[in-house]
């Protein structure tokens, strides 16, 4: 059902006006009908009462008394009967008289019948009720009963209401009544009512028609306006209202038409404006689209950087490719979630209060913070958070740009570690390490250099490096020149001076320092403090000298033992022979002269042998100090062979000598070189002693020319012993290395030889193969390569000596 407010104006008018017309009309009709009704009814009742009262009066007048007993004389009664019976009320109404016992006294048809117990159509004893009511009245006034009655005599089927009014005549105990059908009494009333009703309906219909017509008349133009305006609203702007009234609606129609014209005009302007605006809109839309695409591209193509936008509650609004990659969340999963889900920190503390205030104040918040991936993995990120504001400057959210810096941090740490590592290497070096820039200003020194120079880094860095060179700037220039030429150098000997002026012998290596592009940015130098080494070297030289001395003493001991052996044999032989001769003489035994001479000769041989040995011992003792002179190498060689000759013979060593006749001289010490040869020969003998046969020792001496030098003298000793295993080949010149049994050798022999030969600017070479013997070559530089000149010199000398 429609709401009243949705009704048409016409209906609303009808709704308002119709009651105004209808309600008074109905009220009027009702009032008129009731008034008429009651008037008619009263009239009818008065008629009945009038009949009753008239009869009552008649009866009362006719009363006579006899013995105080009232009665109506019969004559009178018949008169009354005649009167009563003549009375007809309405169409069928009539009066009657009945006594207290229900006997009809006067009735048009049923005189003398008792109807006390007659019943109405409802079954009530209405006569009895009437008599009772009548007696209750005691003769004063009239009463009334109403009852439904079917008049069977008239062949009625349905009951009609009957009204009976009555009065009690107490003197006789009669009830005087008059009855009639209500319909007969109210017949007129019903007709009047009908007429009024018909009139009312007619008037109502007429009035309603009028009202509708009036409403129509009023709303018709409005409807037309409405209709037109709706059509105009649909675009038919050329329509005009055709209402020619002078009233308000006419005014409205005029205004409407004017307005329509204006709208038509405006619309025309508007259309062109709209066209223009639409064009502009399209353009700006295109522009927006381009910017939006650009922004999306920026967001999505940034895979290294996570770009996250959130609202003011830190709920994620945007989550770009980088963020997805870094945090492992899909966009759909994280959108609407809180940003702190990507933080290790809890919701309450992932943004500190101060940070928050900073953001609010419009500052960017930069922080390195632990973050959490979707799978819970934790990493370090560097995040920049800014507040996002709209055009009015109101805070609308936050924007975070961050990246995973775990790797970078790791690299940073690695770099720091590497740097620390390198620095600790540099710092732990006992050698001084310096870097300088191209001007020679010190840019770095390590602790080693601090210690060498007894100075502090802070004082050294920034100073010019030449300040610490004993020769100052000249040394620096020299070093720089070498570096420019060779890029680097090693083992350059120089002297530094510390602030107290103490001189420090330095062995330095340096190279140019280049950056990764290969540009020279300075120099780096390593300075080895040689003070201690120099001191040690001196001590070593001293120790070596004493070692040589002690080795010499040992050699001497060996020699003495050997000499003792050599001497004891002839000594014993001669002692024994002398004893024999003496015995023979003492016992005067037959002793031929021949025998004695033979014995004495033998004794003489013994003495010769002893003399030779002793003589050689003398030579050995003289050669203790190094005295270099131009020397014929054959002198120490022959001497050594002389000493060892007997021994080699004793050991069945077959010695082959292959000596070159004329050799240039060498600078050297005969006794030292003799020791070298002795050593080598005795080693050869020891080696050969390891086998019982094939004991050969080949000794050669020869000259070898060498380009640009006076050439070399070579003395080689080749034995046919077991050879030297390759693994000890290079050890045999080491001091104290020995293959001999304890007590047999000191292990110093060959090392001393090596030292001695080195001092002669020569070298010892060794060729050996297992099972094929060994060859030691003593190679010494000749003084002059010119053999002839040598010869001439020799000749000259001879001349002088001769």
């Amino acid at each position, binding site marked *: 059902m429609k709401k009243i407010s949705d009704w048409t104006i016409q209906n609303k008018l009808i709704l308002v006006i119709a009651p105004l017309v209808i309600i008074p009309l109905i009220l009027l009709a009702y009032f008129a009908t009731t008034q008429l009704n009651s008037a008619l009814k009263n009239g009818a009742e008065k008629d009945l009462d009038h009949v009753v009262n008239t009869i009552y009066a008649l009866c009362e007048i006719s009363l006579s008394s006899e013995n105080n007993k009232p009665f109506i004389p019969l004559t009178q009664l018949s008169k009354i009967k005649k009167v009563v019976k003549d009375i007809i009320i309405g169409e069928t109404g009539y009066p009657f008289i009945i006594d207290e016992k229900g006997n009809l006294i006067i009735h048009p048809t049923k005189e003398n019948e008792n109807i006390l117990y007659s019943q109405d159509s409802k079954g009530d004893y209405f006569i009895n009720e009437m008599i009772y009511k009548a007696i209750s009245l005691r003769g004063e006034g009239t009463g009334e009963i109403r009852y439904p009655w079917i008049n069977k005599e008239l062949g009625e089927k349905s009951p009609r209401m009957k009204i009976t009014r009555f009065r009690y005549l107490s003197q006789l105990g009669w009830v005087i009544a008059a009855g009639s059908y209500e319909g007969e009494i109210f017949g007129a009333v019903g007709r009047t009512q009908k007429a009024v009703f018909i009139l009312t309906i007619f008037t109502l219909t007429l009035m309603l028609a009028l009202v509708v017509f009036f409403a129509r008349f009023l709303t018709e133009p409005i409807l037309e306006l409405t209709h037109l305006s709706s059509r105009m609203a649909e675009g038919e702007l050329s329509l005009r209202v055709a209402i020619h009234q002078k009233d308000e609606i006419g005014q409205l129609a005029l205004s409407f038409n004017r307005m329509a014209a204006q709208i038509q005009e405006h619309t025309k302007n508007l259309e062109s404006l709209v066209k223009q605006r639409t064009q502009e809109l399209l353009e700006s839309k295109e522009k927006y689209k381009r910017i939006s695409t650009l922004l999306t591209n920026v967001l999505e193509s940034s895979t290294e950087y996570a770009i996250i936008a959130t609202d003011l509650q830190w709920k994620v609004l945007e989550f770009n490719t980088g963020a997805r990659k870094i945090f492992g969340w899909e966009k759909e999963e994280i959108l609407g979630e809180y940003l702190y889900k990507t933080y290790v920190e809890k919701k309450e503390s992932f943004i500190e209060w101060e940070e928050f205030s900073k953001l609010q104040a419009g500052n960017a918040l930069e922080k390195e913070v632990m973050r959490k991936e979707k799978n819970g993995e934790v990493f370090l990120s560097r995040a920049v958070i800014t507040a996002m504001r709209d055009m009015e400057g109101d805070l609308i959210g936050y924007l975070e740009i961050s990246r995973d810096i775990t790797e970078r941090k790791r690299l940073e740490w690695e770099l720091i570690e590497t740097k620390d590592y390198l620095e600790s290497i540099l710092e732990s070096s006992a050698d001084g390490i310096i870097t300088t820039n191209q001007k020679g200003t010190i840019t770095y020194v390590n602790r080693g250099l601090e210690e060498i120079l007894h100075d502090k880094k802070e004082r050294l860095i920034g100073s010019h490096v030449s300040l610490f060179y004993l020769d100052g700037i000249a040394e620096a220039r020299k070093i720089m020149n070498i570096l420019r030429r060779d890029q680097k150098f090693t083992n350059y000997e120089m002297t530094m001076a510390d602030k107290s002026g103490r001189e420090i012998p330095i062995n330095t290596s340096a190279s140019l320092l280049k950056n990764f592009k290969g540009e020279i940015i300075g120099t780096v130098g390593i300075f080895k403090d040689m003070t201690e080494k120099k001191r040690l070297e001196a001590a070593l030289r001293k120790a070596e000298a004493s070692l040589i001395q002690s080795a010499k003493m040992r050699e001497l001991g060996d020699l003495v033992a050997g000499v003792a052996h050599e001497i004891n044999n002839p000594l014993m032989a001669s002692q024994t022979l002398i004893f*024999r001769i003496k015995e*023979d003489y003492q016992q005067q035994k037959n002793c031929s002269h021949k025998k004695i001479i033979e014995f004495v000769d033998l004794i003489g041989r013994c003495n010769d042998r002893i003399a030779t040995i002793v003589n050689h011992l003398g030579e050995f003792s003289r050669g203790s100090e190094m005295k270099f002179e131009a020397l014929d190498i054959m002198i120490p060689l022959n001497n050594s062979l002389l000493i060892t000759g007997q021994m080699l013979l004793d050991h*069945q060593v077959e010695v082959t000598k292959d000596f070159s006749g004329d050799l240039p001289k060498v600078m050297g010490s005969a006794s030292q070189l003799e020791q070298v040869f002795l050593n080598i020969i005795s080693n050869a003998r020891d080696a050969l002693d390891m086998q019982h046969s094939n004991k050969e020792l080949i000794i050669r001496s020869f000259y070898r020319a060498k380009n640009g030098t006076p050439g070399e003298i070579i003395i080689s000793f080749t034995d046919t012993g077991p050879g030297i295993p390759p693994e000890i080949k290079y050890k045999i010149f080491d001091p104290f290395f020995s293959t001999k049994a304890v007590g047999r050798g000191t292990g110093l022999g060959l090392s001393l030889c090596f030292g001695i030969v080195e001092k002669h600017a020569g070298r010892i070479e060794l060729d050996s193969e297992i099972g094929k013997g060994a060859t030691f070559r003593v190679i010494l530089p000749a003084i002059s390569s010119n053999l002839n000149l040598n010869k001439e010199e020799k000749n000259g000398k001879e001349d002088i000596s001769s």
Partner: protein
Amino acid sequence: MAKKILVVDDDDLVLIALEALLSPSGYDVTTANNGDDALEKLNKKKFDLMILDILMPGMNGFELCGKIRELDEYKAVPIIMLTAKSGIEDKKKGMEMGANLFLPKPIAPQHLIDLIKKSLE
């Protein structure tokens, strides 16, 4: 019957001198100037005493002494070792190899004769 003595030394002078010393004293002296020579001569004759030099080329006195002691008939024959060296180590080694006496060179000839005589008793 004269006692047979074998003298082994690489030095001819020593051999001649010892032979000259011992022969007049009534010993049958045989000389050898190396170990192999000595072992050969041991097979030909039964000696009653041996004088061995230590420092000899080839087989030295100790080795020779050891080899002699391996021979059944020389297990108890007195062996005197003579040496120009006189280290205690050498003496010990000589005794280990079965030598009875270890004497230094040079030794007084009379003393040697006395010791030989004593050893042969």
